[in-house]
């Protein structure tokens, strides 16, 4: 089956800059999977997301949506892709939360009745129903983040691009985002997430790509990538907490745990093996 979205050897540079910010990026996003992009600050993660959303055009290479160049499908292709910005202040521009969430639906000429139903549905899902009449600029960072997410998922895009969705959020808000991503995947839709939070990535991603200086230097199954401490060290990241605990206690590479539940199982197994060996 063809990938939903593919980045094919994309090279991109900002106008007036004499170096490429993205250098030969290549990745696929399949239907119903969560792909994470990790890397240090300034490595080009956000720019890559803008390329994937068809907002920037690479000077070399292409971005394919359903095997066709996304740039030949614009602006219709944008209805299938939702982008949540890293800084909510960059994304919000309407005078009320309700108008902000309804903006995309109004652009798509939905009836006011349907808009109302959808807005209420997503705000209930994200626990922000009480904010509808508020001005988005006067909310807390976490509330703003939820509004930006709501303003995108309301038009039910096939691919959700989340730029650092957990940055500056409380653990409760992170849990809510995590649940939302998992729900999205269960509906057969795809999600691309950029983040520094490897523990969060470990809990939600199916595949991970590692970026450094505009290049994708590694990628693959989440367990293989987040278990590769040398690769993570190259981009100034540490392995997730369960991986580090497991390795410190001498666990083998065959059952690397990524979540706390997995860690518990792995440790049980590890201790049982140790007891058996001692006996």
């Amino acid at each position, binding site marked *: 089956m063809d990938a939903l979205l593919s980045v094919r050897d994309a090279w991109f540079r900002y106008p007036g800059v004499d170096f490429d910010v993205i250098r030969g990026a290549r990745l696929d996003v399949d239907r119903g999977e969560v792909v994470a992009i990790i890397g240090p600050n300034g490595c080009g993660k956000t720019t890559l997301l*803008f390329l994937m*959303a068809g*907002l920037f055009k690479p000077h070399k290479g292409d971005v394919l949506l359903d095997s066709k160049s996304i740039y030949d499908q*614009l*602006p*219709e292709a*944008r*209805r299938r892709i939702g*982008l949540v*910005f890293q*800084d909510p*202040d*960059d*994304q*919000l*521009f*309407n*005078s*009320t939360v309700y*108008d902000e969430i309804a*903006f*995309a639906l*109004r*652009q*798509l*000429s939905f009836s006011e009745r349907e808009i109302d139903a959808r807005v209420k549905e997503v705000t209930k899902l994200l626990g922000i129903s009480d904010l509808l*009449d*508020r*001005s988005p*600029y*006067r909310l807390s960072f976490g509330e703003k983040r939820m509004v930006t997410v709501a*303003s*995108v998922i309301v038009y039910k895009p096939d691919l959700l691009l989340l730029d650092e969705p957990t940055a500056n959020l409380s653990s409760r808000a992170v849990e809510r985002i995590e649940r939302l991503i998992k729900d999205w995947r269960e509906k057969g839709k795809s999600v691309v997430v950029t983040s520094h939070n490897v523990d969060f990535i470990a809990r939600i991603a199916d595949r991970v790509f590692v970026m450094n200086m505009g290049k994708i230097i590694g990628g693959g199954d989440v367990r293989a990538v987040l278990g590769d401490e040398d690769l993570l060290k190259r981009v100034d990241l540490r392995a997730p907490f369960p991986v580090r605990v497991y390795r410190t206690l001498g666990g083998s590479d065959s059952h690397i745990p990524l979540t706390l539940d997995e860690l518990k199982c792995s440790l049980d197994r590890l201790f049982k093996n140790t007891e058996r060996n001692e006996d």
Partner: protein
Amino acid sequence: MEIYSCERGFSLLNPSLCLLIVVLIVSAVSFSKGIAVSLFVLFTSIILVFLSRRGFWLWVKQVFYVFLFVLFISIPLFFIVPGKVLYSIDLSLVSIGVTDYGLWHALVLVLRTTAASAIFTAVLMSLGWRGVVEGLIGLYVPYDLVLMVGFFMKYVPLFLKDICRMLAAREARLFSSRLDYVSFWRSLISIVGEILLRSYWRSSKLSIALRARGFGVPPHRRYSWKRISFYDLCLVFLFSIVILLVTMWG
């Protein structure tokens, strides 16, 4: 500006009608010749601020600043308008006199400017920026202009916060025991360029955000006309009185 950009306006007013009437009243006051209209509008502004239950003293402060500023720039009028000299000042080389007509002209200028500013600020406080945006939509002002007012509403507090953060960051690294004006101004000046760069950066991000969710269609204009209330009728009545006063006394 940040203080006036209240979240919820005085919901009893119809924003479009209110905005239209206030623009007409401000125009009428600005071109009035006597003091009756200005005094009436000033008095009405006070009532409006009381009714809207917003910060009365904030409004007074703002109006007082306008009053002081206009008073300052009207000083030349005391001397340059011909009339009966009430008081003469001898400046060795030349002697200048305060004339009765000069004083009258200055008084009219100060009063009508203060009154125009007072009623506009009072309505702005009553409606809130959101009300202003809704009012503009209802008046069928070109939508690009409405969007710009909306962005203004968004970016004023945002840039104020940015400036405060930048100032705090600079002050935190000013290690001299006495903070003199020179070092303070130096730190203030260094903010200007950074704010310009940030505004460019933010505007480029805003353009991307609009493209991402705009789907290639011009922004959708939506307005639901709010019913005319008793308070709106009061405003219309007020406007009629202003027009009557302008017609009678100029």
